[in-house]
């Protein structure tokens, strides 16, 4: 049975909206959202950045991982309002617009580090931050770095290879140190 419902799209009366200012991929964005709006949904649906994916909404799979002030966090476990003022990097912000892929993205391509691609954005942000912190991870450190992200397709072998390849690419691109 149908309801003579409210205009779809209009926020119903009674649910207070909060203005939230976020810097996303270097751009200041403002949204008006209810307190309960998850950051994952805000990024995807209020800001149209659908690259961040939702796999579980309980913080376990890591597909929703974005960088908050440079550190990987689960966007499904954050309320958009609580992120007010933060600087967020999503997968869309990893490569320079209109240019080549970032070293981490490039590495994934070379090493076949993705299959269906659904978990991939979470890995890319996590590894980008991880390599910033530790540009030369050994095997154990690389495993720790990706240890909190689930992938059902790849069995992780090529994702690990991608971490090491990305480190290699970054080293090759870095300006030469003192002789």
């Amino acid at each position: 049975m149908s309801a003579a419902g409210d205009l779809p799209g209009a926020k119903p009366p009674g649910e207070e909206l909060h203005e939230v200012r976020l810097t996303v991929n270097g751009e200041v964005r403002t949204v008006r959202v209810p307190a309960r709006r998850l950051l994952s949904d805000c990024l995807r649906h209020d800001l149209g950045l659908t690259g961040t994916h939702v796999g579980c909404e309980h913080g376990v799979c890591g597909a929703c991982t974005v960088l908050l002030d440079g550190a990987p966090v689960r966007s499904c476990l954050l309320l958009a309002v609580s992120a007010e003022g933060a600087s967020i990097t999503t997968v869309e912000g990893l490569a320079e617009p209109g240019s080549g892929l970032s070293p981490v993205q490039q590495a994934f391509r070379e090493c076949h580090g993705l299959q269906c691609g659904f978990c991939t954005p979470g890995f890319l942000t996590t590894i980008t931050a991880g390599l910033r912190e530790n540009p030369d991870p050994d095997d154990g450190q690389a495993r720790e770095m990706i240890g909190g992200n689930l992938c059902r397709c790849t069995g992780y072998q090529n994702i690990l290879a991608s971490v090491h390849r990305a480190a290699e690419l970054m080293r090759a691109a870095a300006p030469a140190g003192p002789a």
Partner: protein
Amino acid sequence: MSSLFGARVQRVEDDRLLRGHGAYLDDLGPDALAAAFVRSPHAHARITGTDVSQAVAAPGVVAVYTYDDLPPRLAEPLPLLIPHPALTHGRTPYPLAHREVNHVGEAVVMVVAADRYLAEDAADLIDVSYEPLPAVVGLPAARAAAQLVHDDVPGNLAANAVQERGNTAAAIAAAPNVLELDLDIERSASTPLEGRGVLARWDEQSQRLALWTSTQTSTGVRAAVAAKLGLDLAQVDVITPDVGGGFGVKIVHPWPEEVLVPWAARQLGRPVKFTEDRSEHFVASAHERAQHHHVTVGYDDDGRILGLDVRFWHDNGAYVPYGLIVPIVTSTQLLGPYKPGAYRVEFDSLYTNTVLVTPYRGAGRPHGCFVMERTMDAIAAALELDRTVVRERNFIQPDEMPYDQGLIFQDGRPLSYDSGDYPAMLAKIKDLVGWDKFPQLKQAAAAEGRRLGIGLACYVEGTGVGPYEGAHIVVETSGKVKVATGLTSQGQGHQTTLAQLAADTLGVPLTDVEVVTGDTRRFGYAVGTFASRTAVTSGSAVTLAARKAKQKALRVAADALEVSAGDLEITDGKVQVKGDPDSGMSLGTVAVLSNPLRYAFDDAAKAATQFAGGGDPDRPPVAPGDEPGIEGRAFFSPVRSTFASGVHAAIVETDPDTAEVRILRYCVVHDCGPLINPMIVEGQIHGGVAQGVGGALYERMAYDESGQLVNASFMDFLMPYVSEVPHAIEIDHLETPSPLNPLGVKGAGEAGVIPGAATLAAAIEDAEGIPILSMPLSPSDLFELRQAHDRPGAQAATFPAGLPHAG
């Protein structure tokens, strides 16, 4: 130009996906209304009342639907997709429950609202009253049938089926040695990272439905939805978006949501979208793997199987929309690479008040492989023979191919193996894992107090099943090549591998080829992606279609160049006289010439207009029987499946104190015939192995005795992280081409998972000296087995109390 067949080409899909520009279902339809469902909290209950009045009035709600709102076609049970004579009591769900619910998670009410948050709020306000009924959970309860799932299905028996080759009872009776085994595999699930989803747009003006769904079969969905909504096929487009993994669960169709969402979209005149969340996926999609098997095997003193009798019980959950595929695959693929003297397999497929069971990667083979390989190991142990020796003695030999097993396979066709070299693959795995050196390794470790074990398991996989797939290729006037095939992609790199085939066959650069899959607007005849069939069926169809297009191009170019077609080749997108790169014309130009035009739409097109010169004025511009354009359309329909094979071996270490299992080495020898893209095949193996490890050591759907799924989240359903998979997966290949398709290829998608449980069970048993007959095996399970083993007569508690066991 070197051949792309066999090249480790980087995927064309990746750039877009890596930038976060994928278009998965929930990324689409920002303007759509959102659907949410009220689902049964009971495993078995009668619905005694439904009050939606508060929901209807809730903020943002546009509609609320119960069974009573459904039109006649939707008020019927959903289709039983694969009927079978043995499936005498097939039952399927209604799109919205009618009078009774049969599993926790069954859809009862649909809410459509402005967004998902508001839809869930409204769902909260819906009051469904239930009269709980006793729940049937687990195979023992289903078999005992003290309670029934469906009132009209006696004994909870959906089907009983028997296949036999030879006189098994007599063979076993006459055998010098007989063994009996009880073997269990427990329930798990595909669990892709992306759940199900469907988006529907109804265009009232053109009376057409556009449906996006995260599916493995666009044509299957289209046919089912058209039938259910009373539409012509031509009124329905089904477009498969990017899909975040399938692994089998997304081959089922139509899901209740897949018919309700388009129906609602039409009713409301608004686009409607349903995105399944993780909680729902656990209780409203499908599971697989729960079977209990009883084996009786008669064998001679050399370990050759004279008679093999397998009786098993399959838990099919509350409904069987996908028919008996899983137990049929177990029944037939259990034979693996062996030729027992006589074989009899009988199964009961039983209802339980749990989520329905449909194929998950491997689709019954992991269970079959577990049964066969544990039996082989048991025979070896009884005769004190090397486990590889027993297997060798039972192998079908290469010179016996093709080998007819005398059974009917899941495609309704004879189970006849086309090619394979099992002795060679066994030799390779022994070499790779160091089988003969292992006893020393084990001894050295034992001296340090460490427990090491080695195991192996062989499998055969029928791949590339029919009925067919097709492909259409068009060369545009720009020289770009557009390829379409009807089956779908969920991460297997089809757009790349099929492009490799098209580019190779046509003679164009890979970058000029674009492949579209799973879009009924582009290709309307297809079956779907499952059973490791894409390379065989679509691969062959693309190749055949490309050959046709090439034929046409050569003919048109030959005409224009006034040479014979046999003197021409296509290299790098240019049609030229063989060995003469300066001659000839681009393929794009050939496409222009192939389509006599009245109107030139660009400069290049001028060459094809009526006053451009050339052409015989006494013949029609398009010859009778011919067509304009450079196109090829072809279908490939295999006469039967082609049989891939392989063997895995693993070395494990078990902790004497904590009973944890660590995989030290995992080796794979894999034969899927020639490889189109070795990098992609290896990726498929890696993923399959991870799922095999998950299924062997971590994943289990834990139902309590009231039918509640106790671990319906990723916190307690233990999909492996990187820390749980082997550190390295060592792969060696073997290639025995298939004579059954033009490429000689065999399927590769499921192989990685099939022998996982069998391999690891064997290795753990070798380390512990305790029979491992049930998987998955957690450290707690192993601890309890150790306790029981140390105290003969004691019952091993493989399970905490209160949770039913499959066995």
